[in-house]
């Protein structure tokens, strides 16, 4: 804004048109923005809910409907309402007959380029991670982004062992990344050679996130199962 401002000789008479112009334009713009916001907001909210539902159903094969739950301060779960912190939400998914398929949990951490966000599905009955999807990443195309579509890598997450210890407080075998082809135990993740850091980052997210969430979800699993039955009844 390198404009020379000419000082008017009679400021009192000249300031009125300026106020009028600024306030007028401000009101006009305000009306425009608010009306567009009100018009588009329901559509945007629906789009977002739909995208989340798609992702949840994808990581929990066999499910057709999902519901969100929020972590309470006591470490239990309740049905999520508006205004719950998205970082404290998990999403339970059910079959058409209201049976619990599993719970989808989001995790995030720094990857090779930027933060990677993933969503993974956990089946409490089998105590396994049954699906994983990368929600957002800026990994190098052709190398790091293989964490999103490499079938061998994704196969790691169809039956990943996250059994909870007898006291229900931690995971018996924390998730571990190993070299490509070296996977020997059900809690290990085969890395991708050529995308070492990205695949290790995904394993790291899972390791941290499962350690934090799985014991909580496992102990609170009755809430999720009950909700499914209620849904069916209603």
């Amino acid at each position, binding site marked *: 804004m390198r*404009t020379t401002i000419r000082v008017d000789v009679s400021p009192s008479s000249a300031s009125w048109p300026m106020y009028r112009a600024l306030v007028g334009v401000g009101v006009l713009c305000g009306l425009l923005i608010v009306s*567009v916001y009100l018009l588009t907001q329901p559509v945007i909210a629906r789009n977002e809910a739909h995208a989340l539902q798609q992702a949840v159903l994808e990581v929990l094969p066999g499910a057709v409907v999902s519901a969100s739950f929020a972590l309470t301060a006591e470490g239990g779960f309740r049905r999520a309402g508006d205004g719950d912190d998205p970082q404290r939400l998990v999403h339970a998914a059910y079959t058409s007959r209201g049976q619990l398929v599993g719970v989808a949990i989001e995790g995030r951490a720094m990857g090779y380029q930027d933060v990677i966000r993933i969503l993974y599905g956990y089946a409490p009955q089998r105590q396994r991670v049954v699906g994983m999807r990368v929600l*957002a990443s800026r990994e190098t195309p052709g190398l790091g982004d293989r964490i999103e579509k490499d079938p061998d890598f994704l196969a790691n997450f169809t039956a990943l062992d996250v059994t909870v210890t007898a006291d229900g407080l931690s995971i018996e075998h924390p998730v571990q990344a190993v070299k490509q082809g070296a996977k020997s135990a059900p809690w290990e993740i085969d890395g991708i050679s050529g995308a070492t850091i990205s695949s290790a980052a995904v394993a790291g997210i899972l390791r941290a996130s499962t350690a934090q969430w799985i014991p909580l979800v496992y102990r609170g699993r009755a809430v999720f199962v009950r909700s499914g039955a209620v849904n069916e009844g209603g």
Partner: protein
Amino acid sequence: MKGAEKAVPAISTDDFIKGLWRENPVFVQVLGMCPVLAVSNSAINALAMGLATSFVLVLSNTLVSLLRHGVPRQVRIATFILIIASFVTVVDYLIQAVSLELHRALGAFISLIVVNCLILGRAEAFASKQSVSRSFLDGLGMGLGFTLALLCLGAVREILGSGALFGVALFPAGFQPWTVMILPSGGFFTLGLWLLFFNYLRVRKPAVREAVPGGTP
């Protein structure tokens, strides 16, 4: 085209045409580089960004021209920025409503349309002085020129970098994509090459004219 009043210059198709080629905002005026480089990694992103910018450009040009007699020159820039920022916010919500995926791909660069020097530049240099219809045409022309330039970049980068155009694969399976083209450095290279091409045309033209006496340019 209807006739204009005496004092005001007549509307001409040139208001529209000049933005496409002779005064192309990207290749000739080198304006608004940030979005050009950042979202041109695929043709579809480039197209969406170009259209969003055109939308803001046309509407802000029109509104600025409509209000040109009511706004004192001291607060001119402030009102321009208010108007542009509002239209950008509107576009941001519209894109979110149409496609969340597209909104994620373009990210913060939709909001950054507001600091695209092209839009403020046109408002200041053209729309604040000209009639509504001329400003509208000017915005449309410049917007299309900008979209065209973005598409030039996006298409080259997607064809070489992913072996596809608008997501449709172009090459047989054996093609090894030049990944560098969709990385940030590919953006610099591609734009550099396009500018080089235009410079070459400009340098060459007078030379040709001298070589062929009486030849038409």
